[in-house]
């Protein structure tokens, strides 16, 4: 049994606010569901994603891979059935997780990651990635590195906005989401929309790498806080 809902008040990070280049308020709660082996909910501004992980467990023979675990990712939209767009996002999240997970430690078994979209207010894919990473951590699965997702939008006038809201996304000229790894801050995944120049791309990559520091720091803080009692 994992540690229950113990009460502990932690210090809030309080930093100066810059209106354009900032990540919205983000928060996370781990092991909030009783059934999954690991679960988390990640909130970025109003965007919120709930993630649940099951595994390692028995795998269907048709999906068995003999030297590593089979990872399945499902993204459940809030309204209606999942379509091709969700399938493409699942594909991105799955391959990112596969790269981070040491799945060779659990051959012939299955891992499944379910992401439920609670509310979409922009930067959905990056929120999914963050929730996925926290849930995998919560499930205690061995990983070679952590990863986080950052979304950047380029506005019509060429300004770059990080962690855009859906309104900002709609007005933007281009939109990019990157997954950054914690080890060397390199790009694990990239998914873009709209056209942009090489220079803009590199700026966004560099920006995302910078922003990832914040998120990794947050990961560290939340894990430290979580295990502070058992130490």
């Amino acid at each position, binding site marked *: 049994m994992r540690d229950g809902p113990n009460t502990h008040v932690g210090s809030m990070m309080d930093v100066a606010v810059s209106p354009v280049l900032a990540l919205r308020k983000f928060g996370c709660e781990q092991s909030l569901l009783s059934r999954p082996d690991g679960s988390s909910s990640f909130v970025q501004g109003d965007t919120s994603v709930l993630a649940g992980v099951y595994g390692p467990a028995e795998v269907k023979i048709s999906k068995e891979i003999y030297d590593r675990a089979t990872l399945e990712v499902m993204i459940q939209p809030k309204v209606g059935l999942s*379509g*091709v767009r969700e399938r493409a996002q699942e594909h991105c999240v799955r391959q990112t997780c596969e790269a981070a997970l040491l799945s060779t430690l659990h051959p012939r078994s299955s891992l499944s990651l379910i992401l439920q979209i609670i509310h979409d207010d922009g930067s959905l894919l990056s929120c999914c990635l963050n929730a996925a990473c926290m849930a995998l951590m919560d499930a205690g699965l061995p990983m070679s590195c952590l990863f986080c997702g950052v979304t950047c939008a380029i506005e019509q006038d060429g300004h770059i906005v990080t962690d855009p809201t859906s309104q900002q996304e709609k007005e933007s000229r281009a939109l990019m989401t990157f997954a950054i790894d914690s080890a060397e801050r390199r790009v694990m995944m990239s998914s873009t929309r709209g056209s942009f120049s090489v220079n803009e791309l590199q700026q966004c990559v560099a920006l995302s790498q910078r922003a990832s520091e914040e998120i990794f720091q947050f990961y560290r803080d939340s894990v430290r806080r979580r295990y502070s009692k058992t130490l």
Partner: protein
Amino acid sequence: MPVDTKRVRGPEESQSPLLFLPSIAKKSVAAERGRQDGRRRGQADVRPVFARCGLVSQAKGSAYIEAGNTKLICSVFGPREAERKDEAGASSGRLLCDLRFAPFSCPNRGAWIPSSEDKDTAQGLLEALRPGVRLHRYPRAQIEVNVLVLENDGSALAHAITCASMALADAGIEMYDVVLGCSLRLDGNSFLLDPTLQEETAGEPGAQGSVTVALLPSLNQVSGLQADGDMREDTLAEAVRACMEGCHKLYPVIQRALLRAVHKRASPSES
């Protein structure tokens, strides 16, 4: 209403522009004595056929056939371990046929999900091929035949049969004989051998029918026969004979194409 969530979806309804054509009187084919492409009625005139083997690098055997504007590609996989293990499959292998029409293959756009008619055509293909393949040599195995019609300009089933048997031969599957297909359209009192799509659909109402025959040429056995429409028994017999004649015309071409494929396979090892 079930929606296809696994494909990019378009608008819910759309109509082919062909429906909005100003209603000019359709050119009547039947009025002319000859046929549009210069072939003659009632004669064993088959369209020029272009056949080639071994196009699909990933398949065990494959073939491409082009007759007039009808274009088909076929690939064969197997023999591999049978998926369904029932008693029937223990002594002899299973032949699986899948026939699909590309959405852009017909004047009106087809759907991705095969209709029951497509399945029936696949069933016809299977029944025509099965007598030609020595399935008892492949116990507990299955051989998969996949046919894709890239463009349908009539006689799709007949050419699918020919194409599939070429692909089977190319894959080195043991066969009694190649299976050749030929179809015929009965229009009024005359035969149109190897009809085009226009000839298949148009024509005088009344005495009409279509016949498709699959033949094992060297054994002179009919492995498949499908006919519909309204015809007398003697016309049917005549039509079947005409189709068989058509098949025999096709035979040397297919033989050559297969021989060439064998030569090709042999040559790299020599060099």
